């Protein structure tokens, strides 16, 4: 099955969860993990690994991280190394893209196509008004 794990700093994941809850609802295949001030890299990594352990071996996972290059991103990207083709890490997605990810359960697209699509949505669902 496909899963989405949202991770970020200081309540980001919880904020995304609440955002989805209000607009479209939170599906069971989505998970939310926040890096707290008390976490160091190893402790956070252990928390992410504990979550991933509950997944089935053939599950496909998209990690959605708040910031490119930051700790949650690094932990996720490192997990993707050993799960090439099955796990992908995305960083800096916007609310529209994440909302689309909350509706991928029955998607025909592959996990990689979904990852690419989320990046594209982020680029197109950003605007300035007046132009």
């Amino acid at each position: 099955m496909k899963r989405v794990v949202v991770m970020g700093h200081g309540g980001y994941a919880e904020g995304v969860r609440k955002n989805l809850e209000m607009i479209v609802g939170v599906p069971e295949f989505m998970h939310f993990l926040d890096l707290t001030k008390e976490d160091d890299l190893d402790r956070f990594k252990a928390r992410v690994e504990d979550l991933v352990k509950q997944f089935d071996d053939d599950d496909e996972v998209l990690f959605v991280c708040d910031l490119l290059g930051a700790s949650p991103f690094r932990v996720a990207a490192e997990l993707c190394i050993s799960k090439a083709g099955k796990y992908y890490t995305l960083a800096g997605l916007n609310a529209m893209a994440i909302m689309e990810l909350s509706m991928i359960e029955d998607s025909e697209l592959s996990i990689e196509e979904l990852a690419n699509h989320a990046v594209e949505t982020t680029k197109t669902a950003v605007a300035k008004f007046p132009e």
Partner: protein
Amino acid sequence: MGKTYIRVDDRLIHGQTIVAWCPALSIKEIIAIDDESAKNPMLKSILTMGVPQNYKTHIVTTEEAKKLLKEESPINRLVIVRFPEKLEELKEEMEQVEMLILGNIAKRPDTVHKVSGATGIFYLSDRDVSIIDEIASKGIEVCFQQVPTTSKTTWEAFKKSIN
């Protein structure tokens, strides 16, 4: 000639460093020392993905870093190590350093000192303290500071607090 700064941060290259410290210190080149990551191309690419391309970025072994630091540089450089013990291997290179900035440093089995507050959370062992003491005694400025806009704790102030 460019200036050289050293940061101790167990996260090695981190957003706080790139977004806050590099502009504040006019850094143009980043030399991150981590033997494990330097030998693993995948880890290397994960670390450098978050660094904008206008910085020259190196993820290197201690030996490679020594070579890089031997060459004079016209631009400001930031050397990043994960833990204070690495500084012992860089004694010669320390002589050209302007400032040692202690960033995030995680708890380890032998860490008995803790500094926490707006400056971040830092854990130091007695050995770390003596290594940094030696550096401070050479007249290099040493401080704890998470980002340039948060408060700074000088090494002298920290030393007074543990005595």
